[in-house]
C-alpha cells in the first residue's frame, strides 16, 4: 500500500493537462447510504441458456454481462479464494472470456488461437479436447495491437471463433473436430480478425480488424452449418457495398443521401479508409437488428482524407437477415484522434423523463456516454464520463460533436494535451449493467496525448497511420477508474480510482457484486451499490480479459478470469513487460513507466469460489 501511495504522488506530477471538462460526479460528499440507484430498468433480452451457464461472449444478446447467480454477496465476498487455475500455454494479451456450456468450459488463446474444452465435472479439470487450427504466422505482424482474441460463440453443439489470420472456424463442441474453416480476411491487405462472433438466426456474425493498416472494414454473416458467406456489408464505399437502401431511415438529416460512404471521402481514399469491426456485437430479436461499431478512419493523418469519412467511427444498426443498414450514428465524424466507435452497445429499457425508452447505451472512445433510441438512432443524451477537452459537447439537434478547433491536429500543427488519448475514455473492455441497481459498471481510461500528423504512403499490409501521438497520465493523478454510471441522466454514481487504465471488462451479479481486474494484476470484487472493494487477489499478470460466472457441477457459484497482460497496454504502451524474448528488450514507456514493477506477460485462467 505504501508504494501505491508513492505511485499516486509520482503520477500527480505527470498530470499536466488543463481545461478539460470533468464528468459530473455525484459521489463527492455522498455517503454510502445515500448512493443513487435507478429503478424500473430492464435488460432488453435475457441471459442465454440456464443462469448457471455462460453461452455468449457477453452472456446475452443485450451485452449486459449480468448474471442471475447470487451466492456470492457483499457479505461473503471477502472469503473468495482460488478454486483452480489453468495455463493456456500462450503469453500475450488474454482479452475476451471463456464460455461455459454443459459443465464444459471453452477457451480460445491469443495467437495461435488454440481452443480448449475443459471438463468441469472431473476432479482436476482435465481437457476433453484441444484444437490447434492452421493459422498463418504472418498474422502476428499484421495485428496492430497484440495478437489478442476476444472469445468464441456457441450454437447447435458448435463452437465458432475467429483466427488472427482472417479465418472463421467451427469446431464440434463435443469432439474438438473442425467442421468448417472459411477465409474471410486477406492478410496481404493487413486484414486480421480478433473479435468475438455472435450467432443470430443460424448465422455467425463476424467482422474485420485492421483499421491501422488501411483496410476497408466489413461485417459478414456465415451459415452455421456450412460456413458459407450469406451476406457481407462494407462500412465504407458506395451504397450498394455498405448496404444502404430502402430500409435506411436514419434519424439525422445530414446522414441521409446517396453514396455517403464514398462521397464523404476525397477521390478513392475510401478504399483504404479503415472502418473495421473489431469490437462487440449486440442483437435485438424484436427489431431483428444487429448493432456494431466501426473503427477509426485511415490514415490518422486527417489531411489525407478530408470529409466526414462515413461510416467510420460510427454505431450502425443492420438487419440481421440481410446486413442492410437501418440507422447510423457517427460518433466522431471525420475522426482526428483515433476514436473508434467499436465499444459494446448495451441494450436496456430505461426510464427517461417519465417514459420507458428502449435504448442502446454506448461508452465511446471519444469520452462521451451515448444513450440512443435503439429503434431510430436518436441520441437521447450524450455526456462525458471521463476528463474530456476536445469538444464542447454533443449537439442533440444534429447528433454531431462540437469540436474545439485548438484541439484539431493537421500536418504542421502539433497539438498538445488532447483528452482522452487515442486509447479513448474507454476501450474494448466491456461494461456491465445490473437491473437491480439500474447502473452501468464501466472500466475507464484517464490518459491524454499530444498529436503530430505526418504524410503517409499506403503500402498494402503495412501500417497506414501517419501520426505520432505519445500518451501521458490524465488530470487528477490516476490513469483509470472503475465507475458506476447512471445512463438516464449521464452521471457518475461512484468510482474506484486506479493507478493504471482499467483494461478488463466488468461482470455484475444478482448477488450485488461487481468484478473487474487491473493492469497491475489484481482481480477485485466490489459492492455494486457502494463501490466498496470487498476482496482482491493478485493474479500475477495484468488483467485485460472479462470475468464470467457459472454454476459448477457441485452447485457452487464460480467466477473465472484470464490473467495475461497485452493488447495496446501490454505490447505497445508498457513496452517492457515481456521476459520471453531475449532478442527484444524494450525501454519503458513514459505513459506507464512503472507498470512492469507489478506485472509481466502471462497466460492463465483463474477460477474463484467461496
Amino acid at each position, binding site marked *: 500500500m505504501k508504494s501505491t501511495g508513492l505511485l499516486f504522488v509520482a503520477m500527480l506530477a505527470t498530470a499536466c493537462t488543463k481545461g478539460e471538462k470533468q464528468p459530473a460526479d455525484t459521489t463527492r460528499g455522498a455517503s454510502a447510504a445515500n448512493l443513487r440507484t435507478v429503478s424500473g430498468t430492464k435488460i432488453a433480452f435475457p441471459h442465454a441458456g440456464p443462469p448457471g451457464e455462460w453461452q455468449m461472449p457477453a452472456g446475452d444478446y443485450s451485452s449486459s454481462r449480468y448474471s442471475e447467480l447470487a451466492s456470492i454477496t457483499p457479505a461473503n465476498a471477502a472469503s473468495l479464494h482460488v478454486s483452480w487455475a489453468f495455463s493456456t500455454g500462450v503469453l500475450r494479451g488474454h482479452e475476451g472470456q471463456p464460455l461455459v456450456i454443459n459443465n464444459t468450459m471453452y477457451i480460445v488463446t491469443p495467437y495461435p488461437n488454440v481452443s480448449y474444452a475443459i471438463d468441469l465435472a472431473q476432479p482436476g479439470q482435465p481437457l476433453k479436447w484441444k484444437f490447434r487450427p492452421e493459422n498463418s*504466422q*504472418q*498474422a*502476428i*505482424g*499484421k*495485428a*496492430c*495491437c497484440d495478437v489478442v482474441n476476444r472469445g468464441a460463440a456457441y450454437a447447435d453443439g458448435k463452437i465458432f471463433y475467429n483466427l488472427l489470420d482472417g479465418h472463421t472456424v467451427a469446431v464440434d463442441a463435443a469432439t474438438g473436430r473442425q467442421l468448417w474453416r472459411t477465409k474471410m480476411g486477406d492478410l496481404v491487405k493487413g486484414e486480421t480478425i480478433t473479435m468475438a462472433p455472435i450467432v443470430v438466426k443460424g448465422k455467425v456474425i463476424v467482422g474485420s480488424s485492421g483499421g*491501422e493498416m488501411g483496410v476497408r472494414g466489413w461485417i459478414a454473416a456465415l451459415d452455421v452449418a456450412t460456413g458459407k458467406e450469406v451476406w457481407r456489408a462494407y462500412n465504407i464505399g458506395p451504397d450498394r457495398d455498405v448496404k444502404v437502401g430502402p430500409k435506411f431511415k436514419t434519424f439525422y438529416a445530414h446522414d441521409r443521401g446517396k453514396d455517403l460512404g464514398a462521397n464523404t471521402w476525397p477521390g478513392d481514399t475510401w478504399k483504404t479508409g479503415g472502418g473495421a469491426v473489431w469490437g462487440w456485437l449486440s442483437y435485438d430479436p424484436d427489431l431483428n437488428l444487429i448493432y456494431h461499431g466501426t473503427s477509426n478512419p485511415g490514415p490518422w493523418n486527417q489531411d489525407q482524407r478530408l470529409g466526414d469519412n462515413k461510416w467510420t467511427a460510427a454505431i450502425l444498426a443492420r438487419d440481421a437477415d440481410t446486413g442492410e443498414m437501418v440507422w447510423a450514428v457517427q460518433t466522431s465524424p471525420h475522426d482526428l484522434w*483515433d476514436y473508434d466507435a467499436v465499444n459494446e452497445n448495451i441494450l436496456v429499457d430505461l426510464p427517461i423523463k417519465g417514459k420507458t425508452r428502449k435504448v442502446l447505451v454506448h461508452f465511446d472512445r471519444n469520452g462521451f456516454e451515448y444513450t440512443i433510441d435503439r429503434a431510430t438512432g436518436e441520441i437521447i443524451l450524450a455526456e462525458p464520463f471521463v476528463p474530456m477537452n476536445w469538444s464542447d459537447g454533443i449537439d442533440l439537434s444534429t447528433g454531431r460533436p462540437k469540436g474545439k478547433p485548438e484541439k484539431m491536429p493537421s500536418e504542421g500543427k502539433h497539438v498538445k494535451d488532447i483528452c482522452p*488519448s*487515442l*486509447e479513448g475514455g474507454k476501450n474494448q473492455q466491456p461494461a456491465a449493467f445490473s437491473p437491480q441497481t439500474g447502473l452501468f459498471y464501466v472500466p475507464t481510461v484517464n490518459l491524454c496525448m499530444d498529436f503530430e500528423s*505526418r504524410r*503517409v*504512403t499506403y*503500402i498494402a*499490409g*503495412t*501500417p*497506414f*497511420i501517419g*501520426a*505520432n*501521438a*505519445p*500518451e501521458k497520465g490524465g488530470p487528477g493523478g490516476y490513469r483509470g477508474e472503475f465507475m458506476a454510471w447512471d445512463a438516464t441522466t449521464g452521471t457518475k454514481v461512484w468510482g474506484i480510482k486506479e493507478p493504471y487504465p482499467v483494461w478488463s471488462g466488468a461482470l455484475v451479479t444478482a448477488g450485488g457484486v461487481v468484478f473487474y481486474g487491473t493492469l497491475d494484476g489484481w482481480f477485485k470484487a466490489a459492492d455494486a451499490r457502494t463501490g466498496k472493494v470487498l476482496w482482491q487477489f493478485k493474479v500475477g499478470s495484468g488483467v485485460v480479459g472479462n470475468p464470467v460466472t457459472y454454476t459448477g457441477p457441485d452447485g457452487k457459484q464460480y467466477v473465472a478470469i484470464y490473467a495475461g497482460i497485452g493488447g*495496446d*497496454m501490454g*505490447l*505497445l*504502451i508498457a*513496452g*517492457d513487460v515481456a521476459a520471453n*524474448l*531475449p*532478442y*527484444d*528488450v*524494450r*525501454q*519503458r*514507456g*513514459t*505513459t506507464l*513507466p*512503472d507498470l*512492469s*514493477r507489478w506485472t509481466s506477460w502471462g497466460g492463465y485462467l483463474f477460477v474463484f469460489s467461496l
Partner: protein
Amino acid sequence: MRIGVLLHSVAVVFAAHALSACSDSGAQGAAAGKQVRAAGYSDGGDSLRLLTHDENLPAGFPLTGQPLVLRNPHEGDKAAMTVGAQLFIAYNCIDCHGADGAGAVGPSFQDGRWHFGGTAGAVFESIYQGRPDGMPSWGGRISNDQIWMLTTYVRSLAKSDISTENFTGETVERTGH
C-alpha cells in the same frame, strides 16, 4: 533437429537468391529488362550458388562452392543513415518498429539484440526476404540500395545494454494504436 534447422535455412536462402536474380524494379525505376546488379548482394548470373550461413553448418560440412558474402556498400556512412531514417518513415517501418526503433508491433532496434542476426548481411536479409512473424518481404519492392541504407540506419540505433531494469532509467514516448 539440427538437420531440420539446416534444411530450413538453406531453403530460405535458395528462395531469396532466386528472387535476387531478377531485375531490380524498385523505387529507383530500373528500365524494364535491364539487369541491375544488386549492390553486393547477389551474382545475377548464378542463381544456384549457395549463400551459406557458416553458423548453421555442422563441423566438416562439405562446401560446394565459394560462399557469397553480403557487404554493405554504405557501412557506417552518415549520409546513408540519414536517407535510411527517411526511408524508415516513408516505408511505414516506424509504425511497427516504433519511433527511433524503440519497438511496437515489431521488435526494438535499440537493444542491440537481434532475432535473426545483427550483421549488415543478416539485417539486409531480414528486410529483403521478410521474417515469419509478419515482417513483409521488401526485396523487389524497393531497391537493394535502399535496403542497404535502411540496414545502415537500423544498425545505428542500437544503444547500450538495457537488459537490467532498475526502474530509474530512461523511458521513451510510445504511441498506442
